[in-house]
């Protein structure tokens, strides 16, 4: 059944975005109800998961707009230039991740996710928690695949730098 098949991915996504379980469950139910109300707009040639997550993403944008958060953090990511020079590995790059045990790292990543800008956090969660491909995320956000890859890369490196900060 549709709800049981997609409830975990949707709750995982919303939960990482709002950082509060009960609110995430309420929002997830609202999203499924919106999906049900919009069923007439679903086109079978597209994946149902991308259609559902488009509704979820728009729901979160509306939520943040109501909370009057900065639109820059919602709709744009910093440094969105596709021509940005790629980052080379530095010889003296600290290997902070190696020093953390896996369990501690998970906890730190979970906490650091809250500090990411919403636009980057959303894409990181989709890529590395929900397991979406770059093409699927580009379809959801109606962005070029290159932009999505760029933003996911920024999210990953920003998250790694946040892990270096003292807990």
């Amino acid at each position, binding site marked *: 059944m549709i709800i049981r098949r997609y409830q975990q991915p949707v709750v995982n996504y919303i939960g990482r975005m709002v950082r509060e379980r009960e609110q995430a*469950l309420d929002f997830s139910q609202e999203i499924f109800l919106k999906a049900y109300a919009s069923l007439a707009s679903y086109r079978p040639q597209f994946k149902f998961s991308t259609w559902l997550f488009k509704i979820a993403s728009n729901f979160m944008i509306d939520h943040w707009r109501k909370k009057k958060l900065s639109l820059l953090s919602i709709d744009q990511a910093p440094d969105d230039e596709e021509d940005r020079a790629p980052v080379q590995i530095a010889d003296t*790059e600290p290997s902070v991740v190696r020093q953390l045990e896996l369990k501690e790292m998970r906890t730190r990543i979970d906490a650091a996710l809250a500090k990411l800008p919403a636009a980057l956090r959303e894409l990181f969660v989709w890529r590395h928690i929900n397991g979406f491909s770059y093409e699927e995320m580009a379809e959801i956000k109606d962005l070029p695949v290159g932009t999505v890859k760029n933003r996911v890369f920024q999210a990953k490196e920003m998250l790694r730098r946040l892990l270096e900060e003292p807990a």
Partner: protein
Amino acid sequence: MSCFKLEDIYAYLEGELSAEDARRIEAHALSCPACRAAIEDRRRFLGAAASLAPIEVPDDFADGILCRLEASPAPARRRLIFLFAARSACRTDGAAIPARPGRRLTVLGGLAAAGAGAAAFFAAFSLLALLFGRNLWPFLARLGHGSVHYLREAVTAAVKVVKYIQLFFRLVQDFALAMTAVFKRITSFISPEIQIACLIAAAALLAGGILIWRRRSLRMESPHEN
């Protein structure tokens, strides 16, 4: 060979590179401690991110949504798409009441209900006896006599209805016989091969129509991944 870009490292770790590019990175990492450390570092980081604990979804999550859907004024056909799974009862505020397992009507419960019914009948009879005293039986006889009269009228009406139904079926039978005669006359002009071809074409059209209708219904019930 110069070190690889971080984007390439991530692409390698996520399996996005071609086999040849992946081999080049692995070969370079063997001789470059910085790249080797960066790859390992980010491998652990991505592994930890991918293994974050899922947020627990309660068992009645779907039931809560279905309860709210039931309360919505949407067309019944669209509701059927979501209302597939067995679900528990709904509260008036739209939340689901968790189903209590193992609640069945026991034999003892049935006997208790029958006993309560018998007790109620006896109590009603006793009350009537108290009210009417010695006049109870004549009262019951008058009631029964009136009931027999109504029953007789009902049987007479039922017999009339059965007769009308029989007449209707006789009419249908006569109509079917007449249509058969007409059909025989028409098909005598058409060769058996053409008749068979027409039958096959009609059957194919019917089957195709049923298939298309069924596929449309299934697509609405459970949209599948393309």
